[in-house]
Every structure is written in structure tokens, then in C-alpha cells.
């Protein structure tokens, strides 16, 4: 039996990660990226584009093992992942794509998943016949169909128009609200993170480090527009000022010192 404390928890301790460019030059991507996400908690990594967020996800997904450090995943370890591109098999229909990774899924579970994500009409369509928004939702359905213990989302709303992103965000919020899955979301959009996550980790530009951890105590559904705006303002101030102390109105704490940037 596992110790009760780490049930379903994600522990990331990446000491160092570097890439070698084609020219042979090595450059650091990540340095001391350490964070925990509790069981059934939704964590969000927020940082500027190109800071290494996707690299962190790839390390957690064990697609990249060339790094110094450790990653402890939830012990039963079923992983669901939504890549930045949908990565559906073009020669299989939407339903076949989902069933392929989740052969044990019941017809009811599949039907309810497709219903929430508005995919019912597209079950028999091939990915080439879908818009990007639909393909993203199909990829999301696939990730959730495996009934994951850990869900990794890489910019799930990027390059969708405002209205579509808003709708998919609501669907996503409803889905992660309805099932207790330890989730890690990667985004460059702070508002998206605030609307979806329980805990936000702010990343510095490359080499990425976590500069602040912001727990959001208000339940997701109860976060008012005003509260969201306050948090955004507070975080923006901190990013710009770098060393600014936590604002009085926001329920946030700076866990890592930002001065060593």
C-alpha cells in the first residue's frame, strides 16, 4: 500500500534540463523547477511563450528522459494528455480514436463524454473533416476517456477564437469539476489559468524557474469576474516589478524568491 499522503499526488523536481542545438551549442531550458500538485488538484504552469512549459510536460509524460531530477507521478499512473496539436490518428474516426486508447469504456461513459463536449454529431467523422476546435475537443475526449489519474493539458485553448475558447474553457471546467483528477495545465494565458486551476505556478523566461506559487482558495465556480481581475492585476504587477511583495487584496503567497532572476 502506498502512504496515504502521496495518493494521487504529482511531485516534480527537475534540477536541470538543457538542449543541444544543431550547432552543438548547449543552452539551459529549465533550472530548479520544483512543484507539487495535490491529489485531484488542478495546477497551472503559466509563463511566457518559449520558456520551457511544454518541456516540463514532456518530462512528466516521460517523453523526454534526458534531464536531471525526479518526477513522481500518481502511483496507478494512468495518464491522459492533450497535446498542443490534437494528434488524432487521421485514418480513424473520432470515436475510433477515443476507443483505441480506452478499449474498456462503456457506451454510456462515451456517450456522456461526447455529449458534454458537443461531439455527438462528429463521432463518425475523420479528423481531417474537423475544425481545430472540434479536433481539440476530440483530443480532450480521448484524454478523459482513459479515466486518467493524471491529466496533462498543453495549451488546450490556444489559437481558438475568443468565443470558442470561452466555450471550451467552460466545458473543460465542468469536466475537471465533475471528476477528481490530478491535473496539470500549461498556458501562457493567466486568465485561463485563474479560471481553471486551484494553484498557479508562475514561470520565469528561459531558463525557466518557478518564481511564484499562487493558491486560489475560492472554488472555481465561485470566482467572480472582479476577483479574477484582481488576481490578474496583482500577478501582472509582480511579473513587471519582479520583487514586488504580494498585494494585500490577493490570496497569494510568494513561495520562491523572485530576486535571484
Amino acid at each position, binding site marked *: 500500500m502506498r502512504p496515504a499522503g502521496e495518493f494521487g499526488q504529482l511531485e516534480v523536481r527537475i534540477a536541470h534540463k538543457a538542449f543541444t542545438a544543431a550547432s552543438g551549442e548547449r543552452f539551459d531550458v529549465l533550472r530548479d523547477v520544483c512543484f507539487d500538485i495535490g491529489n485531484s488538484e488542478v495546477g497551472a504552469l503559466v509563463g511566457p511563450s518559449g520558456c520551457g512549459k511544454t518541456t516540463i510536460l514532456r518530462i512528466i*509524460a*516521460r*517523453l523526454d528522459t534526458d534531464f536531471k531530477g525526479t518526477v513522481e507521478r500518481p502511483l496507478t499512473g494512468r*495518464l*491522459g*494528455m492533450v*497535446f498542443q*496539436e490534437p*494528434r488524432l*490518428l*487521421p*485514418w*480513424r474516426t473520432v470515436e475510433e480514436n477515443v476507443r*483505441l*486508447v480506452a478499449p474498456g469504456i462503456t457506451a454510456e461513459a462515451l456517450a456522456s463524454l461526447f455529449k458534454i463536449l458537443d461531439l455527438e454529431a462528429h463521432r463518425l467523422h*475523420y479528423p*481531417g*473533416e474537423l475544425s481545430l476546435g472540434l479536433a481539440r475537443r476530440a483530443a480532450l475526449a*480521448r484524454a478523459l476517456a*482513459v479515466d486518467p489519474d493524471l491529466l496533462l493539458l498543453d495549451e488546450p485553448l490556444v489559437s481558438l477564437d475568443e468565443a470558442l475558447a470561452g466555450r471550451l474553457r467552460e466545458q473543460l471546467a465542468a469536466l475537471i469539476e465533475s471528476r477528481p483528477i490530478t491535473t496539470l495545465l500549461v498556458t501562457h494565458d493567466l486568465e485561463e489559468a485563474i479560471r481553471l486551476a486551484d494553484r498557479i505556478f508562475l514561470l520565469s523566461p528561459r531558463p525557466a524557474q518557478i518564481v511564484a506559487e499562487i493558491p486560489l482558495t475560492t472554488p472555481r465556480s465561485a470566482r467572480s469576474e472582479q476577483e479574477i481581475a484582481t488576481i490578474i492585476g496583482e500577478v501582472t504587477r509582480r511579473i513587471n516589478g519582479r520583487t514586488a511583495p504580494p498585494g494585500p487584496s490577493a490570496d497569494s503567497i510568494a513561495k520562491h524568491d523572485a530576486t535571484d532572476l
Partner: protein
Amino acid sequence: MVRLISLALFLAIWWLASLFAGPQMLPGPEKVLSAIAAQAQTGDLFFQLGVTLARVLAAFTIAMIAGTAIGLLMGRVMVADRIGDPLLIVLLNLPALVIIVLAFIWGGLTEIAGVLAVAINKLPNTVVTVREGARALDLSLVEMARVFALPRGKFLLHVVFPQLAPYLAAAARSGLSLVWKIVLIVELLGRPNGIGFQIGVAFQLFDVTLILAYALAFVVVILLIETAVVQPIERRASRWRIRAT
């Protein structure tokens, strides 16, 4: 329609050429057709066709399966590619005749030696084509399969083979024609029956009509296989593609 015109054109050129060359060197289409009919009546034609076809299919199947497995391995595993590449180049450049003669010397004038000799001739060609396909596999889908922990069998069936389909089709297309040409040489050199053996007999009698009759009959069989088997499989494999209109 275009195909029919092209066929008619071919027959017309043949007929004209036969007028100039004379019936001894190049018999006209009508003589060859009647020879086919005569051979069909005795039943000999179908027996020889069947024997050759069986050898073609056996050698083709062995070469495709082994070639696909080796090609996948070489395309995906760098060490296998390093080890296999020099051997592949040797095999690609070894004349068919050398392989056949050696197979008959080492394996005796047996059916197995004959079929294997043909398969080995086709093998490097399949390996090279499938290796290209394996190298071109979409890494993003391979990663997806790894993240979702797809079992190996499903991975091959749903992720790898659909991507290899065009390469397998190319290997099969060129393979079928290559294999039947080599089977004929094998039959000429070391088998007591089949189209190749019959053509050998006809060669000794200088019977050009019979040579053309057997060759033509087999071409028709291969064409039938192509339209009735290969093309429907290709259509099915590519039904997910959005049709260009």
C-alpha cells in the same frame, strides 16, 4: 475509356509489326490468341498458370512479410540500420541469376530452393521501401501512442501500418511484377513445370507464338490481381483522406 484506346493502339502496332516481321519472328495477335485458346482447351494453360501463380504468391508473401519486418526494424532502430545496411547493398546488387543458381546448388533443384531464391531477390527492394516509410513515421503520433501506453500490437495496427500503407502498396506493386519475372527464370533453370519451363521448351523449338501466348496469359492474370485485389485494398486504406475533386 482511355485504357481501352491505349490497349487498342497496342494491338494495332503489334499487328502492323507482325506484317513486316513475318509470322515466324512475330506472329500477329490473332495467331497468339488462337494459341492461347488451344492451350486452354487441353487444360495445360491453366495448370502451368496455376503452378507459376502459386510460386509467385508464395515468394511474394515471404518477401513482403520478411521485408516489412526488417524494413521497420532498420527504419526505427539505428543499430539495426548500421548492421543491416551493408548487407542490404550487397543483396540489392547481387544479380538475380547468381542468387537463383546458388540457391539451386545449395538447396538442390527443389520447390523450396526455387521459391526462396525468388523471395530473396525481392526482399531488399521491400526492405528499402519500408525503411523509408518507417523513417518518415509521424513522431507526434508515436509519442501520442506512448503517452496512452498503446500495446505493441495496436500500435502497429493503428499507428504504424496506416502510415506505411503507401510504401507497402509501392513495394507490392513493383514486387508483384518483379517476382513473376524472376519466377520465370527459376522455372527455366530448375523446375519441371510452370510458364517459365514452357517458354524454355518453346524457345528450343523456336515457337514464338507459344512464347507470346504464355507470356500474354500471365500478364492478364497479373492485371486481374492488380485490379481485383491490390486496387480495392488501396482504396480502403486511403478512405480517410479527403478526396481531391
